[in-house]
């Protein structure tokens, strides 16, 4: 076993390094936002409105990436926006994962009527496009960070449930599960101690992908003004403002957009890279 593991210990994919590196940087930047940000992200200064970024004519030293039409510093808002984006990614991702993977495990391992009920729900859920679903939920629950997180969890648990159910089913048919049963272990214990560790790599991959989705959903909802209040620095609201004034000040759109782009791409590349990394067939 140890030999096999040593043989499998091969070069880690560069895309894992790149995407993981960007996300780590982002987490650190979000944590250290009060230290790094040159300005208060909410402070408006109409004398410093629409300042271009540092390397252009007419820039001011306190605004490295320029300022928006109300004179708020773009870099500071991106940094504080990262806090909201990552918070949503973490909380919504984890909750979705626990709910979806839990239901998927139960459906896949217990089969029978729990599977019937859960699978039926998955089918109904999947028939409805997520964006419309999200907007509908926000319409009912009202705007706010909690609504966004609840909406993501309510909509996306099927992603986990569907995949984990199939995995749990194929694991449940294996010999080690049968021998655990012969050894007299309870079914619930088998599910948690035998099946769960074996589907854990898949759960980690799905969780990474889900966090990327959560970031984009938060950005979309704050873009259309259905997230937290418009004053709060979110990437989506910055993009909405930049979209409106793109001909006067491109930097208000470009910098948050690049950040969002890299973050979403990193989450999905990290997920894909981890999938290859865990997959014994590809080794």
């Amino acid at each position, binding site marked *: 076993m140890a030999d096999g593991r040593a043989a499998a210990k091969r070069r880690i994919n560069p895309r894992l390094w790149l995407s993981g590196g960007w996300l780590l940087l982002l987490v650190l930047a979000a944590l250290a936002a009060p230290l790094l940000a040159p300005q208060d992200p909410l402070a408006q200064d109409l004398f410093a409105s629409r300042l271009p970024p540092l390397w252009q004519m007419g820039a001011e030293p306190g605004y490295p990436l320029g300022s928006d039409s109300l004179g708020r510093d773009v870099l500071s808002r991106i940094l504080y926006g990262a806090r909201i984006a990552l918070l949503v990614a973490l909380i919504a991702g984890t909750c979705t994962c626990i709910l979806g993977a839990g239901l998927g495990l139960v459906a896949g391992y217990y089969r029978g009527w729990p599977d019937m009920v859960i699978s039926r729900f998955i089918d109904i859920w999947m028939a409805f496009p997520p964006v419309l679903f999200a907007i509908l939920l926000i319409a009912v629950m009202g705007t706010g960070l909690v609504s966004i997180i609840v909406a993501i969890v309510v909509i996306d648990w099927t992603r986990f449930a569907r995949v984990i159910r199939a995995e749990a089913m194929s694991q449940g048919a294996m010999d080690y599960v049968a021998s655990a049963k012969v050894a007299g272990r309870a079914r619930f214990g088998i599910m948690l101690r035998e099946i769960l560790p074996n589907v854990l790599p898949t759960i980690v991959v799905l969780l990474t992908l889900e966090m990327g989705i959560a970031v984009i959903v938060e950005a979309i909802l704050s873009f259309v003004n259905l997230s937290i209040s418009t004053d709060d620095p979110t990437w989506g609201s910055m993009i909405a403002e930049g979209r409106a004034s793109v001909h006067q000040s491109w930097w208000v759109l470009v910098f948050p*957009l690049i950040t*969002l782009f890299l973050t979403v791409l990193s989450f*999905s590349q990290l997920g894909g890279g981890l999938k290859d990394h865990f997959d014994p067939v590809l080794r």
Partner: protein
Amino acid sequence: MMLPPGAGEEDIIRLKALYGYDKSIPEQFLIWVRGILAGGFGTSITTRQPVLSLVLGRLPATLELSVMALVMAIAIGGMLALTGTRHRGQKAEALIDVTNGVSLSVPDFLWGLLFILLFGVLWPVFHISGRVSPALGLPFVTNFYLFESLVRLRFDIWLDLVSHMFMPALALAIPLAAIIAQLLKQSLKETMHLDYVTLARTKGYSENYVILREALPNAVLPTLTLVGVQFTFLIGGTIIIERLFSYEGLGNMAIDAVINRDLPLIQGIVILFAVIFTTVNLLVDLTYALLNPRLRHG
């Protein structure tokens, strides 16, 4: 919000009664269902117009955008899959795989923003907002502008419409195109190993002929089912893309309705979307039976 600040208790009660909010929730629901059965979806709170006519007025814009995006997705995805199959194991295929990977991991919302920057600001060749230039007077009877301008041979209007629709449609099309390219290439590859394809090759047909006439008809079926499912998601995606490009369709109206808490309008839009999804799914099933002879005598 809808009453002046000095409004008394009586005015509030009267306003509630006007919109039927004084009744219990089940009663309100029954009134609403009765309205639908009679062919009406109620009145929009913000515009005070019947929901049905508002919603149907916007529907053609969204349908035209979705269908255009679908056509673009099939064209791009199909071309990529065929090129990838033609140059199997070469650099071109690897390049296509990488492009697919990136296209899949970036959602339509971000593509849309990217296009706005590239083709709306840096190199302004397309319009970035609206459905048609307001300067053009529209002499049309239906709201299917794109279709009607073709029928009436007004190519100036048609071109203007297309240059408005191109970027939102492309943004919607790219993720779907990547899915199509990936799946179609996969099934083409599998088909290319089958005996009958080898036979066609030994008969001396060119590689292009073998791929297009022999392999493609058999390989296209799984992709077709997937396109059907994904098309409903594409229609769902129009909501945010329409908002992004200020395109006057259903989705843009849906977001306004949510922001204004215009419940009758939200209900009407959601029901209409549900009808569209069901219809699309039905059509896909029917087409599938038509194309797959094995299902016809089931």
